[in-house]
C-alpha cells in the first residue's frame, strides 16, 4: 500500500510537464560561471554533479536543490534568472533526484545499532513487566552514551565493545536478581524513626566533622545540599514493598524577603524522598505538620534519603549556603535590635585567642536561621511486604512453580518480548541447554535466571533494526522505539502484523492515541532535547562573575524546561510547525521573566504561557536556551548563532572554514563591535564567499547578551567582576550598577538573495516567508528521521515527499510526525 503511494508520487513527479522543459543546459548557463573548476565559489564545482546523481555526489544534489528552491542560488545580485527559469531549474534537479532514488532502494534502509542506555532500561522494564529497572541503580555503571550532534539515538556513537557487553551482563544480572527473589521470604519489620535518629549527611568529602542529628523532636533542613537519612534505615536490606510514613511541615515561609533567599513567594516548600534513583517529591503546607505516605517497591541496597529541592538559598557570598546565615543577623538587626545588640555583645568572649570575626560574619548566626525549610518530626518505615510468596511479579514472569523441565515454555514469552518478534524454531535450544547445565550445580530458579540473562544480552535484544525482523516486526519496533524509547507491546505488534497501521490515517490515529496515553513522553523529552542541542547549554555558560543570577538560580534548567515545554505544548495542541518560529509567546516563570525582562509574571517557578508584546521574543528564536548555547561567556557570536539557526532550523550546513585560515581570537577589551571584528568576512573574498551567506543569519540576535537578556548597547566587560563585591543585592540592580562605556548595537544585515532586515522584528518576519517555512519544515522532518533511524536521511526526494504530506495537513506537528512514520524512509521499504 505504502509502496503504491510512493510509486505513484514518483511517477507523478517524473512525468510532470515542468520536467520536460528543464535541462542540464540550464544548470550550465546559470551556475557554471562562478562554480567552474577554477573559481569554485563556496567550495562548489558544477562538475561535481556529474551527469546525474550518484552515490558519491548525492549530498551535493540535495544541497543544490535546497539552495535553488530557497532562491539563494543563483544569487539575486549576480544573476538575471527569471522566476520561471528558477522553477524549471529546481524541477530538473528534483526530477533527477527522484529518478535516482526510485532506482536505488537501499537509500531508505538504515543500519542496525545498539540500544542506548535509556532504551536499554525501558526495554528491560517491559520485558520483565516491572515499574522500572529498580531503585538500586542497576544501570548506573553502564558506559555513558556519547551524543552525535545532540542525538543519543545516532548509530555513529552507539558502537559496541567488550566493555559495553560486560556492563550489560552486570546490569541485567542486578535487575533480574531484584525481580526474581529466590530463597526464604524475608521477615517484615516496623522501624520507628524519631528525629534524634535522623542525620544530616556529609555533602562533600569532608569527613572530619561529625554528622549532626535532630533534637527536641524535630530536624530541619539547613543546607539544602545536605540530605537527611535515617540511622536505622539508611538502605533497604531486602527487596520488597515498603511503606514509609513521614511527618513533616514547611516552616518560616515568609520571615525573610524573597530577594534575599532567592525562593519565590509563590513556590511551596517541598520535600523529596529518594529511594536509590527513584525520587518522589511532595509539597508541604506551611506551619502544619502532615503525614506523607509512600508505598514503593524497593530493591535491596537502595539508599533512602530526604532532600530539600530548591534553586534558592545561594544568593549570598559565593553561592555557598553558609553565607545565607548572614541574613539571619541582618533580620534581627532590623526587627529585634535589642536582641541583636545582646548577641553581638556576647560574641567577643566566645573563643579566647582567636581574632574575633565582625558581627556580619555568617558563623555567628547559624543558630538563629529562619529561612524557608522543611522540618521533619518523625518517620515510620515498614516492610518488606509481599502480596504473596513467590511474589506476584515473579509468578507473572516465570509462573508459581517454575521448573527447569519447562525452561523452553518459561523463556519463550520472555524472549518473544525481548527480541521484538516470535521465537524461531530451535532458537532457544542453546539457552535451554545452558539452563539445564546450570541446574546441575545451582537451584532451578537460579538456573532459569541464567537463561533470562542470556536472552537479555543476546544481539537480538541489544541491537535494533537487525535483519531477523520481518518488515512488520521492524516497523513495530521502530514505532515504539521512536515514541516510547522501548520495545513494542504485543498489541502494537499484532496491529502492525494485521495490517492495521498501513495507512497514514491509521498511523496518525495510533500516534495520537499514544501521545494521549502518555506513551509518547520519552519522545517529547528526548527529541527536542537532541534537536535543540540542549545538552550543550552550559558547555559555554555565561561568565559566572558577570551573569551571577544565571548561575545562582540555575537558570539554565529553566531555559531547558522552557524549550521542552514549548515542544510539549505544540504536540498537545497539534500546532503548525511554522509556529515554532512565528509564536509571540513562550513558557516562562519568575526567573526567566527576570532574564527576559518580562513583567507581571507570578512569583513562582511554574512555567506558564506568556505573550511578549515587544516583538523581540516568542518561539524558538527568542529562547534563552538557544541564545545561551550559541554565545561565548563574555561576548556574543553572530557566527555561532547563524550556524545554529542554519543547521537546526533551516537544515543548511555551512562548511567549516578551510584548515589553513587563521582565526583571530576575539579581544573583548577593545572598544570594537563584533561587526568591526568580523570585517574581514566581507573584505576578504576568500571569507566572503561563505560568510556572505552565513553571517546575516546571526546579526539579528546581537541585542541578546550571552545569557539571552535584551540589551540596547554593548557594555564592555570590566575586568572588575560584578559579582565579586556583595552578591546580596538583587541581580537586576547589580547589572544596572555595572556602568561602563557603551557602544550602540547594529542588528541589521542583508541576505545574499537581497532580503534585508534592520532588527530582530524584521528578521523574524523574514524567517516566515515561504522558502524559510519550507526549509524549517524540512529541517524538522530531517531531525525526526535522524532520531528515528539513527542516521541522517540520504534520500532527499523521499524527504520532500514527507514535506508535501505535511503541507497537506497544514504543517501540523502531530500530522507531520505521522507522515514521517508513514514514509518509506521510516518503513524502509
Amino acid at each position, binding site marked *: 500500500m505504502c509502496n503504491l503511494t510512493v510509486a505513484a508520487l514518483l511517477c507523478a513527479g517524473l512525468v510532470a510537464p515542468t520536467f520536460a522543459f528543464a535541462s542540464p543546459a540550464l544548470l550550465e548557463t546559470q551556475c557554471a560561471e562562478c562554480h567552474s573548476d577554477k573559481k569554485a565559489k563556496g567550495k562548489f564545482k558544477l562538475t561535481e554533479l556529474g551527469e546525474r546523481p550518484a552515490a558519491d555526489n548525492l549530498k551535493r544534489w540535495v544541497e543544490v536543490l535546497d539552495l535553488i528552491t530557497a532562491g539563494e542560488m543563483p544569487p539575486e545580485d549576480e544573476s538575471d534568472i527569471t522566476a520561471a527559469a528558477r522553477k524549471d531549474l529546481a524541477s530538473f534537479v528534483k526530477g533527477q533526484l527522484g529518478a535516482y532514488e526510485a532506482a536505488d532502494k537501499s537509500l531508505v534502509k538504515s543500519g*542496525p545499532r545498539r540500544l542506548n542506555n535509556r532504551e536499554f532500561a525501558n526495554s528491560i522494564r517491559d520485558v520483565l513487566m516491572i515499574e522500572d529497572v529498580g531503585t538500586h541503580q542497576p544501570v548506573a555503571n553502564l558506559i555513558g552514551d556519547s551524543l552525535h550532534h545532540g542525538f543519543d539515538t545516532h548509530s555513529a556513537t552507539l558502537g559496541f565493545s*567488550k*566493555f559495553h557487553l560486560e556492563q550489560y551482563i552486570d546490569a541485567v544480572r542486578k535487575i533480574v536478581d531484584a525481580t526474581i527473589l529466590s530463597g526464604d521470604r524475608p521477615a517484615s519489620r516496623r522501624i520507628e524513626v524519631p528525629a534524634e535518629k535522623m542525620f544530616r549527611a556529609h555533602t562533600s568529602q*569532608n569527613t572530619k566533622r561529625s554528622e549532626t542529628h535532630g533534637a527536641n523532636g524535630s530536624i530541619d533542613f539547613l543546607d539544602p545540599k545536605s540530605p537527611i537519612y535515617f540511622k536505622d534505615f539508611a538502605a533497604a536490606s531486602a527487596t520488597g514493598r515498603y511503606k514509609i510514613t513521614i511527618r513533616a511541615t514547611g516552616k518560616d515561609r515568609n520571615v525573610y524577603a524573597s530577594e534575599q533567599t532567592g525562593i519565590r513567594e509563590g513556590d511551596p516548600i517541598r520535600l523529596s524522598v529518594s529511594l536509590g534513583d527513584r525520587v518522589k517529591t511532595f509539597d508541604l503546607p506551611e506551619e502544619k505538620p502532615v503525614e506523607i505516605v509512600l508505598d514503593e517497591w524497593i530493591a535491596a541496597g537502595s539508599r533512602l534519603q530526604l532532600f530539600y529541592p530548591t534553586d534558592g538559598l545561594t544568593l549570598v557570598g559565593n553561592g555557598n549556603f553558609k553565607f545565607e546565615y548572614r541574613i539571619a543577623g541582618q533580620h534581627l538587626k532590623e526587627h529585634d535590635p535589642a536582641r541583636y545588640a545582646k548577641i553581638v555583645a556576647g560574641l567577643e568572649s566566645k573563643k579566647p585567642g582567636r581574632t574575633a570575626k565582625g558581627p556580619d560574619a555568617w558563623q555567628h548566626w547559624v543558630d538563629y536561621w529562619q529561612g524557608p525549610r522543611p522540618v521533619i518530626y518523625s518517620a515510620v518505615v515498614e516492610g518488606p511486604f509481599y502480596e504473596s510468596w513467590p511474589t506476584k511479579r515473579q509468578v507473572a514472569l516465570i509462573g508459581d512453580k517454575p521448573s527447569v523441565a519447562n525452561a523452553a515454555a518459561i523463556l519463550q514469552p520472555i524472549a518473544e518480548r525481548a527480541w521484538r518478534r516470535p521465537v524461531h524454531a530451535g532458537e532457544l535450544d542453546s539457552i535451554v541447554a545452558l539452563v539445564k547445565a546450570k541446574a546441575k550445580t545451582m537451584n532451578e530458579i537460579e538456573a532459569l535466571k541464567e537463561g533470562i540473562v542470556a536472552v537479555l544480552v543476546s*544481539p537480538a535484544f541489544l541491537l535494533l533494526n*537487525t535483519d531477523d525482523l520481518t518488515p512488520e516486526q521492524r516497523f513495530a519496533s521502530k514505532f515504539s522505539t521512536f515514541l516510547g524509547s522501548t520495545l513494542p507491546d504485543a498489541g502494537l505488534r499484532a496491529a502492525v502484523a494485521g495490517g492495521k497501521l498501513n495507512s497514514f490515517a491509521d498511523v496518525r490515529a495510533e500516534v495520537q492515541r499514544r501521545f494521549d496515553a502518555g506513551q509518547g513522553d520519552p519522545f517529547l523529552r528526548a527529541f527536542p532535547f537532541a534537536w535543540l542541542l540542549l545538552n550543550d547549554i*552550559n558547555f559555554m555558560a555565561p561568565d559566572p562573575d558577570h551573569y551571577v543570577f544565571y548561575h545562582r538560580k540555575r537558570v539554565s534548567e529553566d531555559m531547558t524546561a522552557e524549550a521542552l515545554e514549548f515542544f510539549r505544548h505544540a504536540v498537545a495542541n497539534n500546532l503548525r510547525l511554522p509556529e515554532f518560529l512565528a509564536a509571540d509567546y513562550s513558557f516562562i516563570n519568575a526567573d526567566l521573566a527576570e532574564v527576559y525582562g518580562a513583567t507581571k509574571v507570578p512569583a513562582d517557578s511554574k512555567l506558564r504561557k506568556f505573550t511578549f508584546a515587544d516583538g523581540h521574543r516568542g518561539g524558538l528564536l527568542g529562547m534563552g536556551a538557544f541564545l545561551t548555547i550559541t554565545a*561565548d561567556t563574555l561576548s556574543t557570536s553572530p557566527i555561532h548563532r547563524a550556524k545554529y539557526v542554519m543547521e537546526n532550523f533551516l537544515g543548511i550546513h555551512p562548511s567549516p572554514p*578551510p584548515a589553513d585560515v587563521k*582565526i583571530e581570537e576575539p579581544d573583548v577589551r577593545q572598544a570594537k563591535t563584533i561587526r568591526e571584528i568580523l570585517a574581514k568576512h566581507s573584505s576578504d573574498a576568500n571569507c566572503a564567499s561563505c560568510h556572505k551567506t552565513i553571517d546575516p543569519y546571526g546579526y539579528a540576535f546581537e541585542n541578546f547578551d550571552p545569557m539571552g537578556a535584551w540589551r540596547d548597547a554593548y557594555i564592555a566587560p570590566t575586568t572588575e567582576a560584578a559579582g565579586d563585591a556583595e552578591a546580596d543585592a538583587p541581580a537586576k540592580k547589580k547589572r544596572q550598577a555595572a556602568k561602563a562605556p557603551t557602544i550602540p548595537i547594529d542588528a541589521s544585515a542583508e541576505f545574499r538573495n537581497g532580503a534585508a532586515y534592520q532588527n530582530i522584528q524584521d528578521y523574524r518576519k523574514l524567517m516566515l516567508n515561504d522558502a524559510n517555512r519550507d526549509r524549517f519544515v524540512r529541517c524538522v522532518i530531517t531531525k525526526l528521521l535522524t532520531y528515528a533511524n539513527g542516521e541522517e536521511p540520504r534520500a532527499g526526494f523521499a524527504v520532500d515527499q514527507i514535506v508535501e504530506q505535511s503541507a497537506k495537513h497544514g504543517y501540523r506537528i502531530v500530522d507531520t510526525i505521522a507522515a514521517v512514520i508513514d514514509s518509506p524512509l521510516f518503513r524502509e521499504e
Partner: protein
Amino acid sequence: MNIDRRTFLKGVGGALALPLLESTLAAAGATGKPPTRFLVVGNPFGAQPDFFFPKNFGKDFAISPTLQSLEWMKDRMTILSHTDHGMVSGHGKEIGFLSGVLPSTAAAFPEKNMSIDQLFARQVGSQVRYDSIGAALESGIRMSWTANGVEKQPFTDPQRLFDHLFLNLTPKERAERRELLKRDGSILDTVGSQFAGLLKNASVRDRERMDQFQTSVRELESSFANRETWLDREKPGFDISGHFTESEVTIANRYDAIFDMIAYAFQTDLTRVASIEFPSELKYTDIEGVNRSYHGCTHNGKMENVTAELVAIESFQIARLSRCLKKLDAIQEPNGNGTMLDNTIVLFGSGMGYGGTHSNRNLPVFVAGGGFKHRGHVDAADASGNSMPLCNLYVTLMQRFGIERDKFNTSTGKFDLSHV
C-alpha cells in the same frame, strides 16, 4: 554510586605501601630487559600558546610559564612546536588526539581510529594484569579508541580505580568471582551462537556493526580467561589515604591519588600503558585564583585576568604530571639501568591547539622520559613552513615501544628522536 567514598580511609588506612616488585622482576625475567611503559596525559582545549611554548628553540630553551613545574627535567623532554593532525578548526576534533583520525573518517583506516595507547595495549596483551588503564575525574574526553573504532572510557572515580587496581578479594569473594566468571562465560558461549539470521541482508556497512558485537563477545571471552588466570595472584597492596586527610578534598588531591596509583601500577607491573584525562566538566575552581569554568576560561577574549585563570588551570595539569614524573624518577628501574622514568615514554598534549581560537593547529605537545636523547624545544615544521603530522611522532614512540612498523595512520615519516 553506592560506594561510600569513606571506604578509602576505612578500608585501606594503615596498609602501608610495601614495595612488591615480584611481578616486575618476573616480567623482566623473560627478556632480561626492563619493560617499556607509556603514560599519556591529555586535555580537550589545548593550551594558551603564548604561555605554553617556550620563546626560544633548542636544548637551552627557557622554560615557559605553563611548563614551569617541569623545570627540573627540562633536559629530559622534547617540546614540539608546529605539529597537528591537519584538521579544521572547532571542537570535536580533539578526540583524534591519539590517532589523527576522526570517527567519521575512520572507515578509511584498517585499524579505524584506534588511538596509540590502545595500539600499545594490544602489544602488551596478557603479559600483565591490565593491558591499559585510563583515568580521569568526573568524565573523560574521548581520548582512547579501540581497533573497532569504539571509545574506551576511563575510570572517573578514584575509589573505583583503586578497587580495580589494588583491592584484593577475600577467599570467599574470590570464589564468588570465579563462579561469576564461569557463569558469565557460559552466557557468552550461548550468546555467541545467537547470530543466525541477524545478518541476512546486511550491507557491508551494517555487517561492520554486527561484527563489533561478535568481536566484543570474543574479546570479552578472552578477557575472562585472562582474568581467571590472574584471579589467584595477589594484587600489590597500596595506600592512598594520605591524599584524603585534609578536611576538604580538592581536585589536586584526587588527581595526585590517581597519578600515584598509576605510578605504583607501573612499579608493580600491573599495567604498562596508562592514559589520564583532564575533562572540561571538572570544577577547576578548587585551584587558587580560578573561579570560572575551564571552557569559559578558554574564551577569555584576551582579558588578562581570565587568561590568567586559564593558564592556572593548564599549569595545574602540568604540575600534577610533574609530581608523578618526579615519583617515577625516584624509583630505580628494577633489573635495568636508570630510573623508571627512563623506561616510561611520557606524552602530554591535546587534539586541540588552542580553545580561544578553536584552532586545531600547533598542538601543544611534549614528550618526556622514555630514555630518549631529548632535544629541548623543537620546531617540527619543514623547510617550507608546513607543520609536521603528529602521527610522525607516534611512529617514533611506537618504534621505541618495540612495535616494528614505520607507518601510523596519517604519518608521512617519523620524528627524529633517538634513544639511548
